[in-house]
C-alpha cells in the first residue's frame, strides 16, 4: 500500500519524539494536534507562547472557554499544575532555552536546517508571530509539513527561497512521506512511508537525502 500519511499521523509521529518530562511548544496549525496524542502516564508539559504552561488536550465543544486558548486560537483544557504568565515571561522561557522541543510547520526547510515558515512570495503582510523566537530559542526544533507543495514541487530544498525564520535551526523533519534528520553531512533519511522507495521520495525532494543504515518504515 502506497499512501501519504495524513496530518493526524504526522502529528502522532512527532509526538513520539517527546521524551518524558519534556517541555514542548506546538506551533500554528498541524502541530497543535500533538496535544491530543499524549496519553497514559507520560508527563509532557505543553507551553504556549500566549502565556500558559501545562495545558491538556484540545477542548471539545462543551469544554470550550475562549479565555483558555493555545497560540493557534484553539480552546484547550486545563490540567492540575498548570500556570499562566504574560507574553514577556512566555518569551523569556522560549528565548532563554527553557523549551525542550518545538514542533513547527514550514513552507520550506533547507538541507542545512534553515527554516522558512512565515512568509510566502506575494503575501508581504503575513507575519512571523512567535516562530522566529521559537526557532532560535528551543533546544530541539521538529518540523512537521507536507513533503511537497500543492503543485508537487519540493519543500525540502537546497536553499530556502521563501523568507527565512532562522538559519540552521531544524533537527528533524517529519512529512507525509518521510522522517529526516538534519546532520552535519546533510539530510539523513531515517524513516519512509509504507510502500514508498528511496528513489521515489528523493525525486520529490530537492535536497539530497542520504538513506540511514537502519532506514525503516515510519513507525507509530
Amino acid at each position, binding site marked *: 500500500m502506497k499512501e501519504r500519511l495524513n496530518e493526524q499521523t504526522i502529528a502522532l509521529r512527532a509526538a513520539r519524539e517527546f521524551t518524558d518530562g519534556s517541555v514542548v511548544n506546538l506551533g*500554528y496549525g498541524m502541530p497543535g494536534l500533538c496535544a491530543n496524542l499524549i496519553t497514559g502516564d507520560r508527563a509532557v508539559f505543553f507551553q*504556549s*507562547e*500566549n*502565556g*500558559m504552561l501545562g495545558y491538556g488536550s484540545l477542548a471539545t465543544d462543551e469544554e470550550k*472557554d*475562549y*479565555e*483558555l*486558548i*493555545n*497560540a493557534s*486560537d484553539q480552546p484547550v483544557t486545563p490540567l492540575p499544575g498548570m500556570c*499562566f*504568565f*504574560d*507574553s*514577556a515571561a*512566555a*518569551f523569556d522561557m*522560549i*528565548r532563554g532555552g527553557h523549551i525542550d522541543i518545538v514542533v513547527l510547520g514550514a513552507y520550506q526547510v533547507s538541507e542545512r536546517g534553515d527554516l522558512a515558515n*512565515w512568509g*510566502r512570495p506575494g*503575501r*508581504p*503582510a*503575513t*507575519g*512571523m*508571530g*512567535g*516562530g*522566529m*523566537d521559537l526557532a*532560535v*530559542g528551543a533546544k530541539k526544533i521538529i518540523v512537521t509539513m507536507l513533503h511537497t507543495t500543492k503543485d508537487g514541487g519540493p519543500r525540502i530544498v537546497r536553499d530556502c527561497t521563501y*523568507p*527565512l*525564520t*532562522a*538559519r540552521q535551526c531544524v533537527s528533524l523533519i517529519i512529512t507525509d512521506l518521510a522522517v529526516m534528520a538534519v546532520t552535519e553531512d546533510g539530510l539523513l533519511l531515517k524513516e519512509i512511508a509504507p510502500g514508498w522507495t528511496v528513489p521515489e521520495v528523493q525525486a520529490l525532494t530537492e535536497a539530497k537525502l542520504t538513506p540511514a543504515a537502519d532506514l525503516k518504515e515510519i513507525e507509530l
Partner: protein
Amino acid sequence: MTIDKIFNSCDEAVADIFDGATVMVGGFGSYGGLPINLIVALSRQGAKDLTIIANMGGVGYELSHRIKPGGYQDSGILFENGQVRKFIGSVPALGGMPPTSPLERLFNEGKVEIEMVPQGTLAERLRCGAGGLGGFYTPVGVGTTVEAGKEKKVIDGREYILELPLTADFALIKAHQADTPGNLVYRQTARCFNPVMAMAAGVTIAEVDELVPTGQLDPEVIVTPHIYVNRIVEVPA
C-alpha cells in the same frame, strides 16, 4: 482622597485619544484578552492617523466567526475605518487565503504601513519601554529580514541584533478584575500582552469584567499594580 479612575463608559474613557496618537491594543490576537469594547468605542470616536501596536492586526468581524461562534469586533474595525496610519506587531495577517485581515487588504493597497516585529521581540520591546531601558540585544531575527537596518553585535561569540524600546500614548487593555485603586488581575490566557502594554503606555485604559472594592484582591495575586492603570471601565462579561 484617592484619584478616581472609574469611568462610566468606554466612550468616555477613550474620548481624548487624539489624531496621530500611538495606541497599544492588548490581547494576543483573537478573542481572549482583547479589549473589544474599548476598540469599538475608539472606532466610534473616530481618531485618525493612529499608530497601532498590537500582536495581531485583527482578523475583522467577518473572519472572527471562524474563531468564536457569533464573532466579535477586533482591531480590524479601526483599519476598515481608515483610522490607522501604521501597524507595529507580529501578525498583520494570518497565512490562509488572502486577504485574511482588513489590515492586509489596506497594506496591499498602500494605505497602511507595517513594522513587522517577532512576537517575543515585541513583548521585550514593550518591557524595555516600560522599564526605562535604551534597548537590548536579541538573537531572534539574525540572518532574516528582521535584521535589516539594525545594528548587529557579537557578544560572547553569538550574533545579536539591537532592538529598541516601544512606548505609546495610550494602551487599551482587558483585565478580569480591577479594585478601586486600579490593581488588575487577568483570567487564564487572557493575560498575554495586557500586562506589558499596561506598563509601557502613558495612559492605560482597562476594560474589566468586574470592579471590586479595595482590599478584595489578594496582594500576592495582583499582576498589574495600580500605578500602571489610569482609567477603568467595568463591562460585565
